[in-house]
């Protein structure tokens, strides 16, 4: 019988639109999170059914001038390496600050890594666009900026802008249009499921009634 196939297709479509909405809601919530990369639910036909996967889009967020010397924005692909609880972690969120011991920390308090481990930033330090940190005209360290090439970490060619923040890569307009589209597609799938159900009902209930 072919009908249940239509039912499973409709259900798969509804599931796909649900995960699309999850990604959109996530993006809208993070429309002001610096360095945030939007999530995209990829919906594609697999045979007759929909499948979805969530990937992180690599878009460059707009740069916003803050004038805060420890705000760092990355231009181009790459991430800052920071010391997480379970090894090295990566972030594009450049809201750094200096802690009591003079170490450069990210917004979650993780130490920012340079060529020799955690970076210690003297008061008069300046950060150049290639990530080198100067104090009294001398290079004292270099920000570790990493890109991934097939899962292998390598030095990225992103440039650093001190005094700027990279804004969230979320475009609220396209998110809102996708939101409406996801809602309508979900509705269409729901209608398809109902129609299939109606047809099934007729086949199961009304057809035998005619015969008798």
């Amino acid at each position, binding site marked *: 019988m072919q009908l249940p196939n239509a039912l499973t297709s409709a259900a798969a479509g*509804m599931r796909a*639109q*649900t995960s699309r*909405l*999850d990604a*959109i*809601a*996530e993006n*809208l*919530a*993070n*429309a*002001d*999170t*610096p360095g*945030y990369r939007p*999530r995209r639910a990829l919906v594609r036909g697999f045979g007759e059914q929909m499948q979805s996967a*969530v990937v992180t889009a690599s878009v460059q967020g707009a740069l916003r001038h803050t*004038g*805060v010397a420890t705000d760092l924005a990355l231009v181009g692909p790459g991430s800052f390496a920071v010391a997480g609880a379970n090894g090295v972690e990566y972030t594009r*969120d450049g*809201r750094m*600050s*200096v*802690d*009591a*011991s*003079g170490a450069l920390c990210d*917004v*979650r308090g993780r130490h920012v890594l340079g060529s020799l481990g955690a970076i210690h930033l003297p*008061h*008069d330090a300046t950060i150049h666009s290639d990530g080198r940190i100067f104090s009294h005209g001398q290079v004292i360290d270099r920000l570790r900026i990493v890109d991934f090439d097939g899962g292998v970490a390598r030095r990225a060619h992103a440039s650093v802008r001190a005094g700027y923040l990279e804004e969230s890569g979320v475009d*609220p307009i396209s*998110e*809102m249009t996708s*939101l*409406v589209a*996801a*809602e309508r597609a*979900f*509705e269409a799938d*729901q209608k398809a*499921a*109902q129609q299939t*159900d109606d047809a099934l009902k007729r086949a199961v209930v009304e057809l035998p009634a005619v015969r008798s």
Partner: protein
Amino acid sequence: MNRALAAGASGMAAQQNVLDIIAANLSNVDTPGFRADRPEFASLIGPDGRGMGALSQRSARLFSQGKLDPTSNDFDLAIDGEGLFEVRTASGAVAYTRAGNFTRDTAGALRLPNNAALAHVRLPAGTLAVTFDQDGRIHARVAGKPAPVDAGRVRLCSFANLSGLRLEDDGLFYASRDTGPVLRGAPDSGGFGKLRQRCLERANVNVVNAMMSVLAAQRAYEANAKSVQAADEMLRLANNLERG
């Protein structure tokens, strides 16, 4: 779907918090030396490593320069650049501030409206007029003496981590575990700013930017409310699948 609901709700809560912070900044726009807070967003990650929306409960205090307004009061002092005044409160505690609206008391100490006195400064008895140099040196004209008298020097303080300073109800900053040791120096040297007499530093709140942030926060709140609505609508449709 519950994720979309939770993400939308967290986004709304984060934007609400932004409005609270901007409102506090705007209400202090005329407080001398007030330092604005900047709302900080972070994405929330659930235990399964997937996103759960946004979070804004922290804010970072900005120590950028406020506008300097000229006044006619000899004891209005402002710092043009980095540094904080060190003051001693009525209870004897050491505190720090950028506010410079001092007045002279009968004993020759310089006091803020909240009664905290500028540390290490005492004007000699019989002082008629005072000049503060931009490097902090104080020259007092004392009754009965022809030449100005050297009356000490204003010193400034700083910390490795200024955002670790704790703001108390009296409007003063207090050192904490997170600030690191206090760094002292004279104005106009070692990275410290210049001392300006007959000047007051206004709050470092930019009213136009703050108003724009209010509008943006309002719209962002709406956008998050829409994703809650969409999730709700989809749940309703799912509930209507079976129509008897």
